């Protein structure tokens, strides 16, 4: 199985504020779309599931073919140090895209460590 992953932070109102395609598998554009399509579709399940459990980490909520979707639901937009930094930025409007390159590098570094 290809060790590829797509990491997306979705804010309220379904707005993806950060997307990163991480992993070592050769990138195919179509595949990247497919990842996003699956993640987008999984939001329906997440939306329902998030209210039935206290856990912030919902293991594999959805799957399609070999791709598994796991979700980390955060309470008030905070989960990880870098993200907190972003969200604490007074200039950041909730809902707009995260464009910080620093954040991007951090995410990719973390991804390399765990994949």
């Amino acid at each position, binding site marked *: 199985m290809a060790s590829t992953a797509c990491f997306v932070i979705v804010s309220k*109102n379904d707005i993806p504020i950060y997307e990163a395609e991480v992993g070592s598998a050769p990138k195919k554009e179509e595949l990247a779309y497919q990842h996003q399509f699956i993640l987008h579709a999984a939001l329906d399940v997440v939306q*329902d599931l998030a209210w039935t459990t206290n856990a912030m980490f919902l293991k594999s909520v959805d799957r399609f073919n070999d791709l598994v979707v796991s979700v980390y639901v955060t309470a008030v937009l905070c989960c990880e140090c870098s993200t907190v930094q972003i969200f604490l930025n007074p200039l950041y409007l909730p*809902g707009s895209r995260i464009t910080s390159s620093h954040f991007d590098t951090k995410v990719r570094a973390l991804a390399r460590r765990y994949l």
Partner: protein
Amino acid sequence: MEPGLSIESGSAIRVAVLPVGGPIPSPCLRDYAALVARHACVDLASLRPYYKEHQKSPFAHQPWDAGCLRLKFVLGGCVPSPWEDFQSSRKVLAVVGICHLPSSPDLDRVAADFVDAARSYPSALASRCFAFCPTDAQLVEKKRDDIIIFPPSDQQSLEVHMLTMIQDLAASLLMEFEKWVLRAESTGTILKTPLDSQSSLGSEEVDRMGQSDPVLEDEVKYRYYTIIQLYRRATLQDNAQRSFLSLNRVSPVSFELEAALKLARYLCRRELAKEVSDLLMGAADGAKALIDASDRLILLILYIEIARLFGTLGYKRKAAFFSRQVAQLYLQQDNAYAAMSAMQVLTMTTNAYHVQSRKNNKLDHDSHKELRASNTDSGKVHPQSIVSLFESQWSTLQMVILREILMSSIRASDPLSSWSAAARLLRSFYPLITPAGQSGLASSLGNSADRLPAGTRCADPCLPFIRLHSFPLHPSQRDVVKRNPHKKDWWTGAGPSGPFIYTPFSKAAASGTSKQEVTWIVGEPVQVMVELANPCSFDLVVESIYLSVHSGNFDAFPVSVSLPPNTSKSVLLSGVPTQVGQISIPGCIVHCFGVITEHLFKEVDCLLLGASQGLVLSDPFRCCGSSKFKSVSFPSISVVPPLPLLVANVVGGEGSILLYEGEIRDVLITLTNAGTVPVEEANIALSGKNQDSVISIAHSTWKSALPIKPGGEVTFAVTLRAWHLSLADSEADGSRSPVNSRRTAREGINPFLDIHYAGPAANAENGDVSLPPGRRLAVPLNICVVQGLRLVRARLLSMEIPAQFTEAHLSPVSRKDYISTGTDTAHGDDNLLTIDPCKGSWGLRLLELELFNPTDVVFDVDVAVHLDGTNVDQKLIDEGTAVDAACQKTRIDRDYSARVLIPLENFKLPVLDASFFIKESGSTEPLGSKAAAIAERNAKAELNASINSLISKIKVKWHSGRNSSGELNIKNAIQAALQASIMDILLPDPLTFSFKLAKNGSAINVVSSKDSGNPDDDSGHFTDENVILSTKNAQRCEDLISAHEMTHMVVQIRNNTKEIIRMNLSISCKDVAGENCFDENSATVLWAGVLSDVHLEVPPLQEVAHPFSVYFLVPGDYSLQASSLIIDATDVLRARAKAESSDEPILCRGSPFHIRVVGKV
């Protein structure tokens, strides 16, 4: 496996619907099929009329009142399923043919065709062939039993007709079932299935199942899982056997999937979402097993079903995801129908991905509108609510979906859909598309448009982006003024009073209360400024763009615009309101890329709002270099009935009125009523700056022309006087070359004619008189003042020409004589006294004005001294010459300068008063006295007033061309020139000397020459030469001074002060050589009387005469001069004489007086 499976689907009777005869156009086929498919459920009660019950009917206990017969129409039929016997619901029990008669003229052939088609369904128990849209020829044909022709009619009656037909079909089916049941009971049923299933779920049990009975649900689930297990076991065995027997393997998967889907559909409720989605995910996993090409259909149906079930569950995104999977499967097939299906399926997903066509999202639209409305109400838009406007911006996915729709619609050759998809893609995602991609989209838009008929409309706008820029008020709109019915001056306080629409004071009051209101008038053109942006990298040609008005009372005028790459442009769109009412302009209609679309302003506003918050990819206007987003609130526009419309025209040129400094000119203004309503009342007032430059307005002229009928006009005159250029202006002018001196009038310095006018009051239906609004017309008087004649300098000159005293001057005075009676005969109020400058004068003061003409026209200058003081008659100083020199104006050619001399006479005050010297003498007096200070101040004020009156009396008038005339402003220059010697000009001399001929005992005033002498300073001499000239009389005068004749003369000395003056008078006479003629030793003139050291006392303001006689021995020229040494001169006299020391003798001397003595004839 097939779509739409449910547990109930087993109860439906399958009916194949087959198109027969000639080809049917797909929209027609769709309509016909829909007409048939509408009747999927036929009430048993309604079958009664058609159903003939068998006497031994097994159906006697059916629920005839409430029950129904389910029909499942399968368009195009289906291949016989191997499962038919096992699941009899799969059997096709009836066949319906559909025929489009216009394309199949031969009914026999249609019948044969139908029989052929029906033959492939051997299990069919009933068949009907429906034929639609018969031609006239087919209608008159003999009625056939095998074809049911639907007569042409409207949709409603067609539906009723079809219902009847279907009921008939259902009834005949029912009767066939009856027969079959009666027959089957005796023989028994042989159940043959490919799998020889050991268990089945009786459909009669299923029918009884309620939807929400938990016990039943558990039962269903239990049975499902049992069946699956049993089934799996059976298939394993069976497949083993089959492979052993080399038979076709039967996939176990499809049956399992089918069962899973049936269960999922049965459970499909929000509360069981988790369970259902697990089932569906399991089913989707099962798809992995369907890898054969032959399984593609099953996979397709599986995805369709999963999508449907997720949709029912409310999982829109899941449904969209599986729909897209379906579309991809369709797209793998290489035919137009599959592409069409793909396109339709993808179109269904657009809602979930928020890329829907505007055609389908009216509802969505309204919610946005409400949001906007609530936002604008609260004033500031809350960031969170903006965020919700841009919900689910998964741009990558959105682009993929749109691209797939575009691709499939191109393949399906649906140009409108592909245009719409390309438009949405380009408009929403241009920043993410490469320039090449943008051009590709543009060309696919063009290609799609080529296939569309001209004038096709599409709901989805493409480019350009259009936003409302401003509402430039058309001049005719700007001037509408609400009338105050209670005021005669109805315009006061109603509208803008100045030339500016915006005033900071009125704004503060208005902003809080309501939206801006705009009034448009029927039939008068209006304009709206919009800004277009083309953020893409290709040239955008907007074939036409005009305002979109839905209220139908507006004619918009289209314009065409071309936008180069990455540019924005402001365009003025205009139109004419046609009917009274409200107008709302939601956007523009644009004809671009061959298709007509409507672009809404508020969509772009939302977009820009999002862009300003960083929620949207890019601001199309900013990336085109346009200015920052500013929200333009749309005013509420109401259209009122036609009003009169005055148009002003300044006669003689549209441009500014070019006036030379100080010029006075009449300007004619023509008012034309360009409206369709007469002007009944009007009022003209002045406003703006420099209002004093308008001297008069011919009010009576225009008032007499009222009412001004439509098309009528009135011309009236306005008299203007050009103001004087300030120093800065003159300098600015001076720096230019004379050619450029004609400059345009500057803004904001012009006066306006404020014309308020109104039409007749309208009578409303209920008898009330309603006042339509009045209007205001501001006519700017664009006065451009240019430098005309320029005063280069003014200076004071003194001339000392002794008077030439010939016989001509010796005439007696023609008017009544006056003798030195001691009456107050201050020369000032005597009468006109003139000077002939050619004759010269002693100590004459002249004001020289040097004038330069920098313009390119000729100026005629006319200098006048306006003596309109209280004690001076209105006279011209130059009158003596003016009689014959009325035309002798000084003409100054362009670029030439000329000097004009103004004799400064007649300005002297009658009395030499001590008060003028208070300042000088005041220094010696004790200060601190308050009264003295006040007196001093008064005296100064008086002096200043005298100076000012002197200056204001001098007027330099000029004429140029036919109708330019004016006056030079030289006050300051004169003041500066006169400042130094103002005393000398204003103040009279203490003593005035004059000589008179005394003949026959009467004194004839020949010459009065007075002089105040200052022996030290000749330039201080002051001459007020009162030469009484009456030239005509002088010619005829016989009383000449001749030699060898005794001439009696009188010298008159007048005291101009208020104090008595004592003096020693001396009279001298000199010949041309300057020799003293009264010399004792060599006298050439004999005399009688005392001529030297005459002691005289002159009372204040009185005259004293001293007679003497002279006898000239030699004819020739002589000059007489009187002088007096003042004894005990007062301070005033000393001050006047500017004496430096108190013991200096003060000498007063008259001016020399020339006498020509003729010889005895």
